[in-house]
């Protein structure tokens, strides 16, 4: 009996510890969100979105150029990543058993695990060094490479979820494989593929490391993709490690904008998933 009591107590202790682990993880989450929101809101104003950075010592100004730059670089990344990710996902789902499909999966998983800073180094050697200039294009390439694996994997998984009867119906009507895939299977999986793209966007929206020496930075307004460009994340980094009070405020405001952007992408992804699930249940 004594031994059983001890076993029961141990069981309760461990269960309590597991519950406490949740609290331990909640503390930093709450603290980070609290500081980002409270510091960010007090520094965030209209000028942040519309004005250019001011020189040191002159308070005020905003990050208009960095926000535009982030959008441009992200867009370039998406344009590069979506075709490769979606098409190779289609290939892996359609020719599932082939050696190339296995190799693509391995490549995507490998790419997914490569540290983002290493992707930056890679892009520097192939897209910055040969042209002797940092550029928005190089930054987009780096972000695009990071997006590919997630898009490829979700596309593949979701194409497989499409009921085989849909495809068989198309084939029975005399459609070729390509036609069946592009007019029936892919449209059926579209919300899911969109989820993959949104998740990939959420992942790269906050990326800084691969942009440091590809897109680099630019104090001026620039939309030229062959020139260095300012991005929100790199700007937050620059401001955060600088010794000026006013820049720190701006960095917090930038962080708040970043967090909101990431959350919006995740939220949209969630909505797309919900739609997909409803569709599957409804048939």
């Amino acid at each position, binding site marked *: 009996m004594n031994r059983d009591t001890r076993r029961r107590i141990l069981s309760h202790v461990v*269960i309590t510890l*597991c*519950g406490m682990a949740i609290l331990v*993880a909640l503390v930093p989450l709450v603290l980070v969100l609290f500081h980002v929101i409270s510091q960010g809101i007090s520094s965030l104003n209209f000028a942040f979105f519309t004005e250019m950075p001011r020189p040191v010592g002159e308070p005020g100004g905003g990050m208009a150029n960095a926000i535009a730059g982030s959008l441009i670089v992200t867009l370039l990344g998406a344009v590069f990543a979506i075709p490769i990710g979606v098409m190779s996902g289609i290939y892996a789902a359609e*020719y599932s058993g082939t050696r*190339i499909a296995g190799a693509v999966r391995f490549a995507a*998983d490998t790419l997914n695990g490569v540290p983002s800073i290493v992707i930056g180094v890679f892009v520097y050697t192939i897209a910055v060094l040969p042209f002797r200039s940092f550029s928005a294009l190089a930054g987009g390439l780096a972000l695009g490479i990071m997006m590919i694996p997630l898009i490829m994997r979700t596309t593949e998984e979701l194409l497989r979820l499409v009921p085989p009867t849909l495809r068989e119906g198309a084939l029975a009507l005399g459609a*070729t*494989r390509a036609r069946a895939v592009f007019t029936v299977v892919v449209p059926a999986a579209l919300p899911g593929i969109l989820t993959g793209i949104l998740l990939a966007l959420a992942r790269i929206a906050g990326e800084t490391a691969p942009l440091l020496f590809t897109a680099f930075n630019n104090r001026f307004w620039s939309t030229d993709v062959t020139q260095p460009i300012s991005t929100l994340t790199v700007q937050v980094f620059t401001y955060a490690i600088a010794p000026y009070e006013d820049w720190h405020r701006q960095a917090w405001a930038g962080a708040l904008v*970043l967090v909101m952007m990431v959350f919006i992408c995740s939220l949209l992804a969630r909505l797309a998933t919900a739609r997909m699930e409803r569709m599957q249940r409804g048939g």
Partner: protein
Amino acid sequence: MAPPRLNTRGDEVLFRAGTGTFALLLIAIVGAIALALYEGSRLSIQAFGWQFWRTDTWDPVVGQFGARPFIWGTLYSSILALIISTPVALGIAIYISELAPEALRRPLVFVTELLAAIPSIVYGLWGIFVLVPFVRGLQVATPEWLRGVPLFEGPPLGVGMLSAALILSIMVIPFSSSVAREVLKAVPQSQREGAYALGATRWEAIRMALFYARTGIVGAVMLGFGRALGETMAVTMVIGNSPNISLSLYAPQYTMAAVLANEFAEATDDLYLNALVEIGLVLFAITLVINVISRTFIWSMDRQRRPRLVRTAAMRAGA
């Protein structure tokens, strides 16, 4: 039975070649990364060989490059982060998959996902202005008798190994806990029922499930390790960026990823650049090996009842 083929062969060939080209492009990118990093570090490999990883002097002015402090900092910070985060991550995984009432499960999963969604740069910013001052306070309050211990030596700077390890562990928790959770989900219910039938307490039944899932759990922890090794911004902002090899948690140190972030854009001469690319090459190689091993471990759980479920979760977590 294959459907009757009314289609032309040409259409099929075009489809396969078209999608296949993109597939090959994806494979080529990974190959190109390895190749470009190797090519880009050739000068440094020729000049220093293995000495590169055995010497401590990093002096771009005289062209002397030794990367030992960086590899030390990377390994030490990641191992510390693992020590801090593993119990918490496992606790969360166990709580969500084994203990939490159904209604609480989704919100808790959401919380861990939120933790993973916050960008590294935001953790870094928070680290500089909130965590580092807090850690400095801890250091100032260190009792005299503890200061003689090598782990707690050095002046109270705030920035340093302890801050880096703490921020890394916060960032790693969601990754290992979400994979561990899915791995636990893949354990057949009969394992737990069997344990209960033999009179096990709740913890004893959980222990059975943990034992059953041990390979996958090791994989989940290793996955977190791989993440920690390559983590850049947050670490760069709080570790102090000073190439020391020290056991002290209070000492400012440096990591491979951090030296790349700080010095790459300024590297002017070829040898300097090559030395930095070589650090990237080795970071690539280490994370590759760790990820392949952890994936193998995690996916070995797939052979059990729930195919692909674990795999999808692992993918989302970045395996």
